[in-house]
């Protein structure tokens, strides 16, 4: 029972964070601990009533991240199969976002060191771009094609099989 009391003690403590555009958010300490950056701040006693300032994370993605961490912290250890399934469904719905939000989540989760969310956003981005042509990817990532036409043709010929895209490119991006 001692462990349960400790857990309850932890989650009673609310941690305040402030977005780059000045909005305040609150989450249980257990949720904040899922972020490497916040955990270090808490350990260093930097979490006070004024809130931890997150200078590069705007309110919109921060609200999502607080959601994510709160949900995952509530169900962190000793999951039943049903709970694990439910968390999976939560993740799948959670990451159904537009490209702008996906981008913000990629960058913010990386900055805040929220490993599970980083992986989720990275996998989602990979799923979105995997069926694309090189040209579509150049557009998505703002890359200039620096191959000569001859070189490009040669690369395509060398790996002809890889350029036969059977599925229509996924939406978004």
């Amino acid at each position, binding site marked *: 029972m001692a462990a349960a009391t400790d857990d309850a003690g932890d989650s009673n403590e609310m941690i305040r964070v402030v977005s780059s555009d000045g909005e305040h958010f609150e989450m249980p300490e257990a949720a904040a601990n899922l972020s490497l950056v916040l955990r270090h701040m808490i350990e260093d006693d930097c979490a006070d009533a004024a809130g931890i300032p997150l200078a590069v994370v*705007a309110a919109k993605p921060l609200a999502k991240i607080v959601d994510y961490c709160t949900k995952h912290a509530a169900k962190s250890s000793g999951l039943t199969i049903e709970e694990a399934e439910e968390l999976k469904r939560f993740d799948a719905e959670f990451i159904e976002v537009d490209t702008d939000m996906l981008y913000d989540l990629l960058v913010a989760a990386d900055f805040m060191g929220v490993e599970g969310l980083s992986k989720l956003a990275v996998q989602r981005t990979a799923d979105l771009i995997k069926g694309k042509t090189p040209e579509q990817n150049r557009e998505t990532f703002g890359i200039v094609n620096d191959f000569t036409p001859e070189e490009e043709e040669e690369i395509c010929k060398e790996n002809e*099989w890889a350029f036969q895209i059977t599925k229509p490119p996924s939406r978004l991006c």
Partner: protein
Amino acid sequence: MAGEHKEAGGSFWLPDDILIDILSYLPAKSVVRFRAVSRSWRAMLSSASFVELHLRRANRRDQLKVFFHPAMPTDAEHPDKCCFYSWQLHGGPAKKLMRDDFAHGWFAAPVTKPLRGLVLIRSSYGYYVLNPSTNAVLALPDRKFPLKNRIDLVTNLSGYMNVSYGLGYCSATGEYKVVRLFSDPVSGQAPATNGEVFVLDALACWRPSAQQPPPEFIFDESNPAVFLNGLLHLLCLYGFDVITFNVSDETFGSAPPPPVDVDEVGEVTLTEFDGCLGAFYQEAHSDNYAYHIWLLRDHAHEAAHWEQLCRIDMAA
């Protein structure tokens, strides 16, 4: 703020480490295609460190895959060709990987588990190394078997020597080596050179292995070598001794033989389970199909010992 990195026109810029992370989750086919995006993408997606990362991601523990090849051609468009498939637990229907262009509708089967994306294949026409992700196929030269194109070899008719093949990887040099060991079960006399090595992407010929295998052991084609922790493991006929071959320095050693009674068990097969050397066999003298699976624990240590993992009774 993140938005500052976004450029007009909807494209966005990501730090290299996040971008590499994303690309490492792509299927091999997409990775190869995206090498045509730009010079820097090509360099990054072709680098040894990326290939290593991609392999790790593709072989996550929660993404176990089965690689297989049906005995009969399955593609209505190409009835004379067989396909290889990969299937993932809970991953929907099996995915067709490629057509084999080397078996011509005949027997062809993976000899080894995929090793870093490469598979050793035995067909009626000889041995091949293939990369199912890129469709690359390499026919291995066969100077000891000038008649390798003859189907006789499959049945291993007398007059030919026994041979056992294996595919290994040397992490220090990044070399893939195919190894084959010959033995003569009839005379028990080993040929002068009975261990040979073929290095992929190097000289296109077999060369003698640095050290030769002990001549008293008999290898068999139905017991291909199992690669694990830098060592190829070969099970010998008549006694189930396990010979190891170090792929880096090409020396031979031994591992404890699986503790099975030679008289009780007909055939033992070596394999890799969960990072351990494994052995399995069918229960002899029994009408129900029951299989025993053993694991070699503490492989690299003095304390190495075999431990029975389970007995699977197919009737139950």
